[in-house]
């Protein structure tokens, strides 16, 4: 409700200032908020409508003339080439100075050289050891300077973005380390967290950002929310605003990242390994090329090339796996995750061998008996995690972690409902612990909502699907 109040206040100030309505009319629109709204709205409108002084016309005109004159002078000025090292004396002067080094000068030169070597050695030590320093530590400025320098010399949009994500992760790690040492967290630490995260979120476009980086940002913002919630008691009172700002940035950033990730994944071709794994029973799956569909169910023939099985990769569950579709609402371990008589995900992996660490694979199994919300459903299985998701139709798109991740489980499954070309609702589920977040569009912004609000804020058909996804989350023992 707090968020809603901020929106209402901003809308009312805007409406009053543009003459769409009066303060009194605004208050009647929100009777339940009117007591709280009235004093703030009046003060806001008072400032909004205040005749703040304009520059004196005479000054403005004179300043404009001076500016135009400066433009002409700037255009007429000859351009001198920049000197790379303007402070260094020219070479002949150096030669002359070196030539004069004799006697006492040599001793002085030796001492200088020794001091220089010592300084360089110390600098190297500081540089090397500053990486794990924390704010307040005397080496911390060195760490930040090193980061800025590295960023300066990192070229290419992807590489720079990659490093920026690492820096945001580093800032979050610093917050965690502060908390683990029970040190109080101040404004600057949280401000740095916001300053490193916000640009990443703002520039998050599925068309221009690789999906692996979107996934990192998704994980980062999810983790930020967890960490900020945990460290809240250690945040100094004067940093309460920064904490709230950090939470807003991470929450909205996460919603945007989830949406971008789902869009990016929906545009990708299904990975071969994934397709192969949808044909359990084949010892060495071959991306469906040689798969001979049996009479098994293929309920998602209209699906997009995202996660849903395509006609070319029709799942042909063996008798063992026919029993795999799980009633998603059950909390029992999913038979699909460990199909009886069928291969486990690891067994189906193209390159496992005994003694080797098995990769955590992602499986997608159709749920032919499930038509909740009038949709077709699939089961995503990642290691010992599983969740039911709608087939990619009727506005739903789905993404899940890349299929080659090793334990510990990382990433998340996201199901996004799109309406009118933009996301209207979304669910993200973290595969490592099954924790879920639900988002809904409110006043044009995707915001996280409580599970209890799903039925209250979303249309019944969408709420039913989301509730079904949440109820299907299953974690079995590894």
């Amino acid at each position, binding site marked *: 409700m707090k*968020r809603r109040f*901020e929106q209402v206040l901003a809308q009312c100030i805007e409406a009053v200032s543009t003459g769409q309505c009066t303060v009194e009319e605004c208050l009647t629109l929100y009777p339940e908020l009117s007591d709280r709204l009235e004093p703030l709205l009046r003060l806001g409108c008072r400032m909004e409508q*205040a005749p703040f002084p304009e520059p004196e016309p005479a000054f403005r005109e004179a300043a404009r003339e001076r*500016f135009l004159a400066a433009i002409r002078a700037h255009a007429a000025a000859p351009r001198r080439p920049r000197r790379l090292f303007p402070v260094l004396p020219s070479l002949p002067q150096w030669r002359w100075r070196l030539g004069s080094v004799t006697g006492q000068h040599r001793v002085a030169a030796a001492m200088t050289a020794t001091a220089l070597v010592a300084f360089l050695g110390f600098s190297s030590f500081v540089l090397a050891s500053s990486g794990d320093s924390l704010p307040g530590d005397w080496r911390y400025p060195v760490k930040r300077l090193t980061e800025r320098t590295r960023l300066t010399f990192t070229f290419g949009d992807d590489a720079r973005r990659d490093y920026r994500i690492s820096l945001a992760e580093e800032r979050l790690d610093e917050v965690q380390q502060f908390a683990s040492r029970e040190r109080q967290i101040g404004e600057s630490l949280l401000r740095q967290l916001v300053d490193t995260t916000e640009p990443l979120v703002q520039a998050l476009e599925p068309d221009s950002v690789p999906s692996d980086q979107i996934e990192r940002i998704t994980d980062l913002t999810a983790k930020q929310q967890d960490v900020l919630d945990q460290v809240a008691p250690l945040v100094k009172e004067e940093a309460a605003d920064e904490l709230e700002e950090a939470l807003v940035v991470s929450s909205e950033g996460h919603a945007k990242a989830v949406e971008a990730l789902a869009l990016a994944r929906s545009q990708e071709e299904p990975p071969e390994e994934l397709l192969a794994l949808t044909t359990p029973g084949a010892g060495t799956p071959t991306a469906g090329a040689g798969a001979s569909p049996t009479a098994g169910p293929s309920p998602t023939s209209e699906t997009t090339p995202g996660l849903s099985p395509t006609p070319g990769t029709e799942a042909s569950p063996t008798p063992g796996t026919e029993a795999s579709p799980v009633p998603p609402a059950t909390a029992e371990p999913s038979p699909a995750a460990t199909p009886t008589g069928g291969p486990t995900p690891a067994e189906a992996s193209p390159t496992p061998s005994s003694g080797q660490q098995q990769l955590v694979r992602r499986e997608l199994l159709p749920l032919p008996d499930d038509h909740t919300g009038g949709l077709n459903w699939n089961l995503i299985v990642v290691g010992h995690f599983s969740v039911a998701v709608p087939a990619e139709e009727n506005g739903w798109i789905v993404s899940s972690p890349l299929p080659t991740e090793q334990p510990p489980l990382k990433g998340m499954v996201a199901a996004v409902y799109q309406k009118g070309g933009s996301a209207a609702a979304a669910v993200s589920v973290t595969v490592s612990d099954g924790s879920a977040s639900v988002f809904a569009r409110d006043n044009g912004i995707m915001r996280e909502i409580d599970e209890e609000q799903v039925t209250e804020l979303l249309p019944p058909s969408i709420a039913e699907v989301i509730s079904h996804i949440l109820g299907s989350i299953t974690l079995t023992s590894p």
Partner: protein
Amino acid sequence: MHLLSRPELPTDGQERDIVQRARSGNEQALAELYDLYFPRIYRYVLARTGNPAEAEDITEEVFVRVLGAIGAFQWRQAPFAAWLFRIAHNQLVSHARKNGARRRETPLAASIADPAPDPLTRVEDRLSLEHIFDLARALPQAQREVLWLRFASDLSVSDTARALGKQENNVKVLQHKAIARLQKLVVQSELGRADQ
């Protein structure tokens, strides 16, 4: 109630076109940017310094710096408004550093006419705008920045968000917090006056 119409900034596309021409030294485009942003920058600077004479000097310096730096401006790093207000912010910081903790010489009251009808029953309406903006100086910097850009520079929520490189909702949060805190300060201030 007297309503002021808020002058709108050009659309993204229009502004990009102007900035692109300005970057290549087009005098007309530079003048357009000057006309578009000069009053906003002036009000922002005035709100921060409280001194009209200082605000005039600093605003002129901001645009001289813009002239020297616009060739290096790149859209992908920040929107133009964000870049411009960042220069203004830096200029203010630099000015404050040079002038130490010198107090402002001319009160804002000289240049702000309070149009509120009188007498009014509400506490906040009995206070002058000068006093309100003075009280706002006690707010955290992020909240102050939003107030100055929203109410002194007449930027909308979305333009303020662009100028600060923040999300719109974040600006709304800061705006709400700023006004709520300011309202408390106004009430406290009024109670203090009553005690005297």
